[in-house]
């Protein structure tokens, strides 16, 4: 199981689109990391998310890999996350942040 944390702004992503996004993330995890995704989908309450000190419209997706990745693999995964978000939510490229962390970065 690949842990994936998604931080999205409340009310910004319709439930059906959220479902699509989670399916995409699961597919990305299976294709690139060989395991299903364990997705923690967290909505930031209205009035509680800020980017550049203004109300945020950003989504942040963080994948915790279970093995060390080459940079090419990492970039490919992050690109697919961004593409999926743009395609399904019609957000701008500046509204999606993706990160893929190696096991060494796991926090205690």
């Amino acid at each position: 199981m690949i842990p994936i944390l998604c931080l999205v702004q409340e009310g910004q992503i319709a439930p059906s689109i959220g479902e699509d996004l989670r399916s995409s993330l699961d597919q990305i995890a299976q294709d690139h990391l060989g395991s299903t995704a364990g997705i923690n989908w967290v909505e930031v309450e209205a009035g509680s998310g800020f980017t550049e000190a203004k109300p945020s419209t950003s989504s942040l997706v963080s994948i915790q890999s279970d093995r060390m990745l080459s940079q090419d693999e990492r970039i490919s995964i992050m690109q697919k996350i961004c593409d999926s978000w743009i395609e399904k939510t019609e957000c701008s490229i500046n509204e999606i942040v993706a990160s893929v962390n190696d096991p060494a970065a796991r926090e205690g």
Partner: protein
Amino acid sequence: MPLYLCNARNGSIPPEAKAKIAKDITDIHCAKTGAPPTFVHAFFFEEAPQPQLGDSTVQLHGNIRAGRTDEQKAEIVQEMRESVARHSGIDLSEIAMTTADVPASWVMEGGDLLPEPGEEEAWLAAHAAKLAAEAAG
């Protein structure tokens, strides 16, 4: 990135204080690191599983790009804790904060890998030029 998460006991940070704290978080991070404000995210939660509250009333956690000095991080921690205390009325001793370093190459923002610390200006210029070129078709 950076991503600052602020987890607090229910009702301990008034809604009107969040924007003020977020402004301070942004200003402090940019002043201490030279990063552009466009990169700074500050999200607030109440009684969330992470970052763990432990015995604290407020727990801040910052995921920041690797390469900052210990001195920079210590100043960020101190000044952000003071901001939360000032705007919420919570005693400074009840506000905890941690940071974690994340390599810039592990994060994609705006469709590009984040720049290494100190390379932000060139990154922003290149990013703006790329978006303009895409918009022009």
